[in-house]
């Protein structure tokens, strides 16, 4: 079972030990670790407001910082960590696995997720509804797949998208609140829903004519893809480090407004 919580104290107050994970490890690796320890799973990518552990520099990808700071804060409770260390994550994920093992003295199971041969459907990516809720559910589906009812609802809500969000789930996740319900999910998050997190062809897929915000986390190598794709598709690149500045907010708001009015300010 996946732990759903907002804060570190909330997670620490739960009975029993936990298996931490980050990125998109193969589902069987997560299940094997959880079964072995009789533990629930906790996603370390999420911002639970963990104190800064200083294991990684401040000027560093905030997603990786979340993984490491969460692991440090939850260390007494973690039976082990299932780490994504392959091309489906990044070098940051690979280095974090080593740092967690060496600095936090937690058992780390390094995994690589090459993706399944069959490409899964994009139900939530193409559905209508609050973007943050859909992205969060896509990431939870790493552990808990959509129910039949959720799948049916997603299919039924499908409409023509008005704008696209390309990239990983951002930190802070509140960036997604700026987008309309008719936002199509693209990039890595879409790859995750399709079960192919390392598929760069899928990651660089952008529908013709759709206005897209190309997001990259500050200090993430995906910025190169985001910038290049934005140039090719006349989209807008946006990067965020630890907070959404007034300028970033205004840029995204203006882009979405212009996208929805066909370019008329």
């Amino acid at each position: 079972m996946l732990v759903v919580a907002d804060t570190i104290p909330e997670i620490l107050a739960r009975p029993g030990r936990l298996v931490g994970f980050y990125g998109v490890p193969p589902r069987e690796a997560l299940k094997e670790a959880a079964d072995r320890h009789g533990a629930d799973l906790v996603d370390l990518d999420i911002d639970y407001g963990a104190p800064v552990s200083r294991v990684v520099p401040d000027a560093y990808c905030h997603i990786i910082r979340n993984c490491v700071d969460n692991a440090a804060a939850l260390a007494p409770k973690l039976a082990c960590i299932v780490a994504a260390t392959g091309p489906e994550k990044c070098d940051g994920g690979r280095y974090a696995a080593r740092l967690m093992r060496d600095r936090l003295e937690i058992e780390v199971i390094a995994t690589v997720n090459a993706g399944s041969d069959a490409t899964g459907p994009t139900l939530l990516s193409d559905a209508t509804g609050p973007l943050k809720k859909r992205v969060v559910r896509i990431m939870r589906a790493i552990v808990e797949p959509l129910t039949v009812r959720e799948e049916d609802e997603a299919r039924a809500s499908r409409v023509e998208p008005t704008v696209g969000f390309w990239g990983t789930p951002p930190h802070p996740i509140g960036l997604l609140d700026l987008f309309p319900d008719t936002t199509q999910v693209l990039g890595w998050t879409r790859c995750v829903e399709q079960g192919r997190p390392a598929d760069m062809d899928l990651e660089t897929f952008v529908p013709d004519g759709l206005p897209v915000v190309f997001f990259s986390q500050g200090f993430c190598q995906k910025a190169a893809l985001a910038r290049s794709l934005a140039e090719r598709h006349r989209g807008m690149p946006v990067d965020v480090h630890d907070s959404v500045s007034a300028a970033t907010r205004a840029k995204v708001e203006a882009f979405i407004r212009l996208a929805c009015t066909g370019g008329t300010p």
Partner: protein
Amino acid sequence: MIFCDAGSSWCKVWETGEEAVRIVPTREMAAGSSRLDWGTGHTARGRSAHFENDLISLSRGALALVRDDDFTVLDLGSRDAKLVSFAGRRPVRLDWSVGCAAATGATLEMIGHFYRVDFASLAVGDEWTPVTCGTYALERIMDAFAAGERAEQAVARFVHGLARNAFDFAGRPATLHLSGGFTSNPAFLTALGRYCRVVPMGRTVPLVGLWAFAADEDPELGPVPAALRPG
């Protein structure tokens, strides 16, 4: 009806019927409790009956003032740089740089006072200091001054570097429509003019945008008043 572009350092305020736009320090505006009918800019959001995003008011104002189909407008103020490029009179590139234009205008204003530099007569030469943000640039000027360089020379290199950075940020257009406080800095205009044709538009472009939105709601407001048009 009060229109206000509330920037980080300066507010541009115009009330219908007034002959000219007033430039008021933001600290004074922020301290007051005045309500705005139409507002844009960093500090206007919470006290405007109608608020427009800075990039939207800049876009709308530029479209009201420029007849070209394809053009680029750059608003360079005290804190940051905002950019809109149009193709066929539709925005195709929006950008707002805080990090890479951080406080350049405020820094220039400060060093102008500090070193008593007259930007109207400052000679900008071939040399430039790479400028990515105000803080780094300030450090370089101080280093140069400490090493015995004349303040005017160091500041001129800074102004030139700023112009290069602005030109790069704008995507190196052949013609650049310039909005914001830098339009009243002759040294900067000269420096930027080395790289492209510069069309200074003054500090009222976002106010013109607000006027255009107000006129959508009340067509009797008529065309853009002379007080808001670039001099």
